[in-house]
């Protein structure tokens, strides 16, 4: 689900009404207008989407965060049987919702970016770095952020986000060559297969990562 994060006073006033007291405090505490608006509009859209999915009222819905800052939902004080993840970049927000399992989403607005060389050093594996470095201009920027969003979506699905060094794993070669989706295991999460999918558009790079749940009767399902 895409969320339009363009500044709009009426839209923002409507969104504030969805927040609970704690969220309003967090919203008011943001020191800068851009991140403040991104949080407000994404959280209100998340609340609306979860209420629809879970069939609950907004007042029944609350959020907790894991040790590493990943949020999860409660309805009436009970953990909700649903997975979700939220990302925002520039004017674009994305919300992913699934019945369960690990889930991560990431979006980055495409545009001029300083320090691209440093970003490449910071997150790409050796093969990825060589492939992206061989490109130039807009192709390099788009290709880099295609990989970046995939890696960040995977790390968010893992649950620790940037606490994991993204250079320690690479996106599958078929996906790096243009396939829209592929599967892999993170070295930090052995035994768990994650599917990563390119869901980007013209103005933004974006990716969705979700846990591949073994079908009932499969070897892995039987081993649990």
């Amino acid at each position, binding site marked *: 689900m895409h969320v339009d994060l363009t500044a709009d006073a009426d839209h923002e006033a409507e969104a504030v009404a969805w927040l609970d007291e704690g969220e309003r405090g967090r919203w008011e505490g*943001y020191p*800068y207008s*851009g*991140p403040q608006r991104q949080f407000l509009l994404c959280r209100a859209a998340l609340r609306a989407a979860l209420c629809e999915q879970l069939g609950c009222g907004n007042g029944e819905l609350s959020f907790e965060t894991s040790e590493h800052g990943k949020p999860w939902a409660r309805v009436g004080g009970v953990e909700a049987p649903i997975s979700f993840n939220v990302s925002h970049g520039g004017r674009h927000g994305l919300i992913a919702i699934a019945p369960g399992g690990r889930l991560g989403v*990431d979006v980055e607005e495409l545009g001029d970016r300083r*320090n691209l060389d*440093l970003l490449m050093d910071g997150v790409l594996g050796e093969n990825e770095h060589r492939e992206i470095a061989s490109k130039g201009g807009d192709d390099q920027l788009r290709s880099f952020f295609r990989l970046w969003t995939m890696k960040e979506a995977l790390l968010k699905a893992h649950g620790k986000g940037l606490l994991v*060094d993204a250079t320690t794993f690479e996106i599958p070669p078929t996906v790096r060559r243009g396939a829209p989706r592929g599967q892999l295991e993170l070295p930090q999460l052995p035994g768990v297969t994650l599917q990563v999918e390119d869901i980007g558009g013209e103005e933004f790079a974006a990716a969705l990562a979700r846990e591949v749940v073994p079908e009932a009767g499969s070897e892995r399902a039987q081993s649990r």
Partner: protein
Amino acid sequence: MAATEERLRKLVDDNLEIEGRTPGSPLDLDRSLSDAGVSSPDIVAFWKVVNEEFGVDISAEQFAEMLTPRDLVAHLDAA
């Protein structure tokens, strides 16, 4: 500490683009970059810039675990 803080503030001004932040404004030492709304690519780039500028070798995991600029200043001053 003040000198390190000033160098960090200048690195923030030169390297982080945050809608609504005026370059040169003081750093909130007790608010994490992510809580201040700094994007994840900017945080990663900032980690690399800090390592270069201060001649240190902070790992990605270490940097992510330093929750606030105050933690980072303390780490750099102790290095």
